[in-house]
């Protein structure tokens, strides 16, 4: 007992541990605590507000039997579509930033990061103004070509468009890191040995850039899965995504246990993906690379 306490104290006295204490405590109170409570609420009887009742699985079974699988389906589909589209949009740019642009790459990084610092709402609203009936796109088409392009807003493609727009940097930056980890000499060696461009891409570039592709893909997938603003502002409730369901369960319906179950399912889904990712990737190497 004494020995164990001493060992703990000497562990605690390391400078690394001491520096980690404030942030860890904060995240335990501000992050782990609330999530554990949501987990607890998911076992409480429906439409109750206390945590100290007999646990029940009623919420889980009602969520399974209700039509919530539709919003899960939409969220998963839209997130998957977003990831695929973003990959094709970002790969050439990431390649350029890692291998072609040289000095200009820094400026491009700044230009891509700046919109991130402007509220997502405001940027999505800008797209509403562009896509609106008599908006910028529709108005210009009418003035120049005489035909109208209204009806683009409040559709499923508009939601995907918003997701692609908002999460573009989260795909691009990991890809840049991934591609810059490919040594040029390897590609030269492969083409010297007679590989075609496509073979070099498939056999050398893609596998070596894979950590970056994985991080970018999973990051954008998870962020899109939990997104709320895109479907509300650009989708106008054409489709209900899972975050919408969670929000209305907690707010309008005042059914905390049901909202908790949906949150737990969403967290479990994204959490599994993140944990699988972390297991395969060395953070020190990726963040600390010079």
């Amino acid at each position, binding site marked *: 007992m004494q020995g164990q306490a001493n060992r703990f104290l000497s562990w605690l006295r390391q400078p690394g541990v001491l520096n980690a204490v404030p942030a860890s405590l904060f995240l335990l109170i501000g992050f782990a605590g609330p999530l554990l409570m949501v987990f607890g609420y998911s076992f409480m009887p429906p439409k109750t507000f206390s945590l100290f009742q007999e646990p029940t699985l009623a919420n889980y079974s009602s969520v399974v039997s209700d039509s919530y699988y539709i919003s899960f389906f939409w969220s998963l589909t839209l997130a998957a579509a977003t990831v695929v589209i973003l990959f094709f949009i970002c790969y050439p740019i990431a390649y350029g930033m890692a291998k072609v642009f040289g000095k200009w790459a820094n400026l491009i990084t700044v230009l*891509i990061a700046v919109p991130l610092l402007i509220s997502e709402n405001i940027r999505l609203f800008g797209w509403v103004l562009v896509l609106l009936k008599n908006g910028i796109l529709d108005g210009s088409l009418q003035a120049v070509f005489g035909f109208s392009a209204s009806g683009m807003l409040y559709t499923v493609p508009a939601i995907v468009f918003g997701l692609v727009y908002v999460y573009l940097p989260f795909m691009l930056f990991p890809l840049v890191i991934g591609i810059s980890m490919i040594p040029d000499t390897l590609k030269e060696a492969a083409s010297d040995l007679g590989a075609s461009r496509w073979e070099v891409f498939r056999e050398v570039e893609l596998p070596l850039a894979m950590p970056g592709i994985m991080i970018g893909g999973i990051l954008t997938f998870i962020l899109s899965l939990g997104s709320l603003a895109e479907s509300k502002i650009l989708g106008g409730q054409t489709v209900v995504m899972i975050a919408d369901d969670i929000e209305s369960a907690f707010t309008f319906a005042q059914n905390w246990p049901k909202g908790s179950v949906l949150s737990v399912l969403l967290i479990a889904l994204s959490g599994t993906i993140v944990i699988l990712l972390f297991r395969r990737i060395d953070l020190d190497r990726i963040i600390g690379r010079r």
Partner: protein
Amino acid sequence: MATAKAKSRVARNLIVLWTVCVLAFLYIPMVAIVLASFSKARYFRFPVPRWTTQWYDKAMDSLSIRDLLWTSLSVATLVTVFSVALAFMGALAFARYDWKGRKLYQRLVLLPIFFPQAVLGLALLLWFSALGITTSWHTAVFAHMVWIVPIVILIMSIQVYSFDPSLEEAAYDLGASRFQVLREVTLPILAPGVISGGIFAFLLSWGNFPLSLFSTGADQTVPEWLYSKMVMGYTPMVPTLGSLTMSGAAILIFLFYMVWMIIKSRQSRA
């Protein structure tokens, strides 16, 4: 050989063209908002028939808009101060020291960044009400920090990874106290990371919507107000206030860029 070279030049030009297009694409909505804020019509249409600056005059005179800006500013300022303090230590633990349990700590720090913010906001709302805390802009500061502290730790860590610990040791050997080492060695070297972390903290809090939505209670920040007006009761104040907050962010980013350049040129001289 010549054709291969020509081919790669074409590929290079295509990449440049594509990048320029996507960059332009990123800025289209901002341009749209600024255009709409100068349009005289109550409901936006394009091409804009008549221009005006009246919405800006109205925004400047409006007391409720002043309140919104003040709330957002207070939240963002407090978030910045607290986040930088917590994250400075947090980043040293993340990247500078090697200790048992660090890998677990790194994962704990990264999880909130990957977490859907709307769900986090709702979980925090439950948490506050279970603890009997009435939500107001004070609780929004806390809620923002749950997401922003990890991001600031990550940003500062990038700087800390390239920090040479032997500089600190040399200072200790020369008889410096712990506080002196922090003030004279560690902080100046890590200053660029601390400044960029602070700027990010401020701007991310300033623009945050999903966490504010559930944690501000009766108070309202600018993004929340914009959202509520977009959904219901549109007024031309939406693009106007949007343009104002965007210009605020742009000025801050520009100042930051200048400071960054000064620090860099000093470092290269030293």
